[in-house]
């Protein structure tokens, strides 16, 4: 599911945060979950020993306190509504030392079950789960360390890899933030989704529809044996309309509008959302009635609005191009080949990409992808250059160094399932050093099409990852637009960004949870590619029409 929003006005994370380097965390933090983690992790650090095997040298544990609300409705009727509180634990144990340990040894699959996790204020109840997790994790880590050493004795590693530490040592940090305790009025959101979904009753061509509202408050409690600790809350809420329909030729189409924000106040009012949904449905029904694309095209294509952000997310992060990957010792998977292009041109010299994960506000607006500290107790930089004027400078990374990226820049994140962390972006900005107005870009599109003897150029206005949803022909002769359906861009990849004719001087902010955690993409409002191939989607499966008439209420 993708979460996206253009408007961020304010943010409710009212907690006073202080990130500090500390030589030793306090023995009692005032946070009973954190104290329980600290006590049990320290006990395990002292006691986890197996004859002839290495003891742990590093342990961390995270407890995610989760409160989740979901409500959904269709055609004005409630479909479901739930609210639940639960806890999830995430263990991490290293055996050996920072230079040589059990990490980076292929996929790490600890086969351990997690018994029901206490949601009570009971240190022993919380410690039970930590003990259970760490015992299983340590045994696996100790065994894997031995296996890894045996494997390494049979291998010759390249010098640049052999000299890299397996896990980066960091100074301890402490960050204590108060829980948010945001009131979730489920009855209000039930009414909201019912009322918002009711408008679809007026559109009989919409076959299926659903309005969802969700809210999730999470407090992450973390401690590691380097004496880093933190308690950090976060909150995200969203409203979403999903619709599907069938075109007259049998193509099934679906689309959604999602608004995700870090506070309820930033979500649209019911009236605002309803109006937005009506506009969205009108556009969607126009797409349903649009002609199927009937010819192949190779020429300039402009992406506009959220489709630019979707594209940036897909090409640089969902496909993990700008995410570091150390080559595992037993290599079924490989390193990220793009890292070999470090300090070389990888995209147009007019474009730069930076990570702003440690930046709370951008031009006065709170960024939903901001986080003060990552799942390995590393604070992300306020600004980190990834690509500078087209040249690759860095990649998002955690605490496993890679040859060209060095150590962590604070991007190991746990929000996907609160159990297994992964490297993921927070705030990302793609910018151009040669911006154009949107009018100039449109003219450039037409000029480029004319240069190729094409009757029209293409503008993509809605996409879902790599899939094009709404694409418009813009005719060279008179500039009029024609929406077409069923298209795909077959040759779109990161290399396409080497041939960008221009980017808008206007920026949009787009929130997404496509990688499981909240991320904000600050991107130009339009991006013009020199040449892409547009053709009918070869995987379209046209359905026969509905046999029985859609039901209507008398």
């Amino acid at each position, binding site marked *: 599911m993708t979460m996206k929003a253009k408007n961020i006005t304010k943010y409710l994370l009212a907690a006073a945060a202080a990130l500090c380097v500390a030589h030793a965390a306090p023995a009692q933090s005032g946070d009973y979950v954190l104290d329980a983690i600290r006590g*049990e992790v320290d*006990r*395990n650090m002292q*006691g*986890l*020993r*197996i004859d002839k095997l290495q003891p742990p040298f590093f342990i961390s544990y995270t407890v995610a306190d989760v409160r989740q609300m979901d409500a959904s*409705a*269709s*055609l*004005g*009727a*409630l*479909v*479901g*509504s*739930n*609210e*639940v509180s*639960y*806890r999830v634990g995430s263990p991490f144990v290293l055996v050996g030392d920072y230079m040589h340990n059990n990490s980076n040894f292929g996929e790490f699959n600890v086969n351990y*079950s997690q*018994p*029901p*996790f*206490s*949601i*009570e204020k*009971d*240190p*022993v*109840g919380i*410690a*039970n789960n*930590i*003990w*259970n997790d760490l*015992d*299983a994790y*340590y*045994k696996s880590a100790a065994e894997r360390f031995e296996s890894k050493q045996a494997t390494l004795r049979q291998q010759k590693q390249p010098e640049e890899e052999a000299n890299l530490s397996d896990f980066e040592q960091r100074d301890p940090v402490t960050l204590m933030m108060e829980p948010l305790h945001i009131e979730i009025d489920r009855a209000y959101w039930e009414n909201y989704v019912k009322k918002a979904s009711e408008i679809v*009753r007026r559109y009989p061509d919409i*076959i*299926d529809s659903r309005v969802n509202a969700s809210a999730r408050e999470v407090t992450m409690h973390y401690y590691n044996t380097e004496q880093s600790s933190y308690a950090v809350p976060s909150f995200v809420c969203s409203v979403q309309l999903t619709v599907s329909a069938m075109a007259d030729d049998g193509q099934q189409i679906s689309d959604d509008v999602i608004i995700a924000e870090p506070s309820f106040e930033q979500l649209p009012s019911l009236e605002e959302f309803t109006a937005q949904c009506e506009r969205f449905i009108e556009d969607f029904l126009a797409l349903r009635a649009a002609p199927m694309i009937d010819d192949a095209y190779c020429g300039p294509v402009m992406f506009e609005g959220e489709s630019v952000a979707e594209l940036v997310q897909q090409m640089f992060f969902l496909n993990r191009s700008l995410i570091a990957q150390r080559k595992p010792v037993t290599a079924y998977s490989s390193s990220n080949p793009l890292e070999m292009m470090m300090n070389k041109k990888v995209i147009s010299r007019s474009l730069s990409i930076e990570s702003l994960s440690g930046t709370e506000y951008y031009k006065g607006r709170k960024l939903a992808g901001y986080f003060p500290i990552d799942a390995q107790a590393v604070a992300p930089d306020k600004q980190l250059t990834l690509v500078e004027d087209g040249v690759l400078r860095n990649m998002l990374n955690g605490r496993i160094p890679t040859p060209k990226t060095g150590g962590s820049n604070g991007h190991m994140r746990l929000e996907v399932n609160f159990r297994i962390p992964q490297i993921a972006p927070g705030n990302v900005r793609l910018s151009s050093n040669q911006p154009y107005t949107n009018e100039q870009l449109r003219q450039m599109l037409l000029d480029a099409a004319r240069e190729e003897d094409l009757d029209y150029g293409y503008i993509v206005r809605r996409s879902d990852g790599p899939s094009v949803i709404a694409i418009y022909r813009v005719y060279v002769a008179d500039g009029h637009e024609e929406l077409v359906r069923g298209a795909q861009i077959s040759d779109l990849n990161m290399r396409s960004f080497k041939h960008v004719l221009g980017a808008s001087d206007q920026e949009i902010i787009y929130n997404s949870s496509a990688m499981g955690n909240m991320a904000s993409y600050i991107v130009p409002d339009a991006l013009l590619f020199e040449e892409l191939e547009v053709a009918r989607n070869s995987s379209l499966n046209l359905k*026969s029409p*509905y*046999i*029985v008439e*859609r*039901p*209507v*209420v008398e």
Partner: protein
Amino acid sequence: MRKILLIVISALFVQGLAAQDEVLDVLHDELARNMAVLSKEAEPAYYMNYRVQDSYTYTIVTSFGNLALSMPRHSRIFNGMVRVGSRQMDNTREIKSGGYGYGGGVMAQQLPVENDPLALRNVIWEATDRQYKESVKQYENVKANVAVKVEAEDKSDDFSQQQAETYYEAPVDFADILPHIEKWEERLKKYSGVFSDNEDILQCSSNMSIELVRKYFVDTEGTSVAENSWAYRISVSASTTAEDGMNLPLYKSYFAYDLDELPSEGQILDDMKQMSAMLSALRVAPVVEAYSGPALMTANAAGVFFHEIFGHRVEGSRLKQETDAQTFKKKVGETVLPADFSIIFDPQIKEYEGMPLSGSYVFDDEGVRGRKVEVVSGGKLESFLMSRTPIEGFPVSNGHGRGMIYMNPVTRQSNLILESSAPKSESQLRAMLIEEAKKGGKEYAYLFDNVAGGFTTTGRYMPNAFNVTPLVVYKVYTDGRPDELVRGVDLVGTPLSMFSQIAACGSDPDVFNGYCGAESGSIPVSCVSSSLLINMVETQKKSKSQSQPPILERPQAE
């Protein structure tokens, strides 16, 4: 808590009440509207049904005295069936050498939990269209398969003719059966808290599930059912690990239709203490080797044993599949068990000698009234459990077509009741066990006291075998030494040879209430049996984890 009365009244009045049920009205209307069109298509639908399961659940989970989850949920799921072809041959027929034939669950959809007719009808209409098209495609596959494969051994129809019935119960308010949640959270915490005092216990949980299900069924033959069921289930599990890495779990569950029928708090706490002590004993019990010889099964274990080795082999629709071993298909009238044994399946009763049975229902998931079936009488096989999939000699259903709402129903078990006309006392059975062991020159026999469950394979391509997983096993010595608790064996065998070894039945009936998983999903069943003496069983070593026990002791309060 207010008592709820099941309302089952005359047909005339039933219709009047049913007319006020908005869900039922929508189902009737939409079924008629869709059938009117689909029955006139080039490949006409000849039968359709719609099912809805409206479920309210409340789940409480605790572990080591701590609350882990306390959550209500309300959901409404729709499913149904469209048949094309004819009763003699339709889209549900098995595709030989081509998988399982009729694909299930195409229609299962989440319905609004509110009674808005348009919102409900829209989901049903869209799902029906998809299901009809899928059925037509499948029917084409069936016709092609029939044309190129050898003739079916069983030439019975694909779908039985049944008498239409109308049955209506008034809706029940979940609030009326919901107990005081905070009170039960505290109770559940106490139950799992018992294990906090035992350092041997590595994991434990106590769960309570309160569930109210309202099932709707309508079909194009005129059947209309709205039936409620509600139940209270408490299940407790705890486990330890022996020094050799063997994981040793124990389970205890309680089932009741009325909160007052659940055992008292004190009784459950006593059970938990016994379970905790037994786990500590099991942890240090010796591991035994493979064995063949006589064994005694306690009533609880015998119920599961019969469900696996016998029950699954009298499920009618399974006997039609040409991939099935069809163990009993040609044995009607033959002696299959000792002459004093009888086995019935009866979904109509809700208790047996005061013990509640979880496999009860009024109508099955094909809209057929659940009927008592005497499968074995005087040791002879008399009948099979039947859904609306006929087999030769058994053309109609006896109300055992069951399935989760997400799946298409197949023949499944209900309440299995094994009885003997010549029951033996516990001491008689024990004496017979020792005598049989001595006869075979054995130093000891086995007593299987508690089982976790089991599984069986009934197909032809794999050995037609069963495996029952004992949790508590004793050696019973022939020389009078005290029984010895042991661990590490599974009970295995093949059904026909096992049936021939069953020697005697006890007089201590007990019930196992649980869930059975098979082709149509997980459904509640129960098994009633007394202790059983079996002259020859076979055991094999249980698989075990290779992990050592935890290195550190479980955290304890300071």
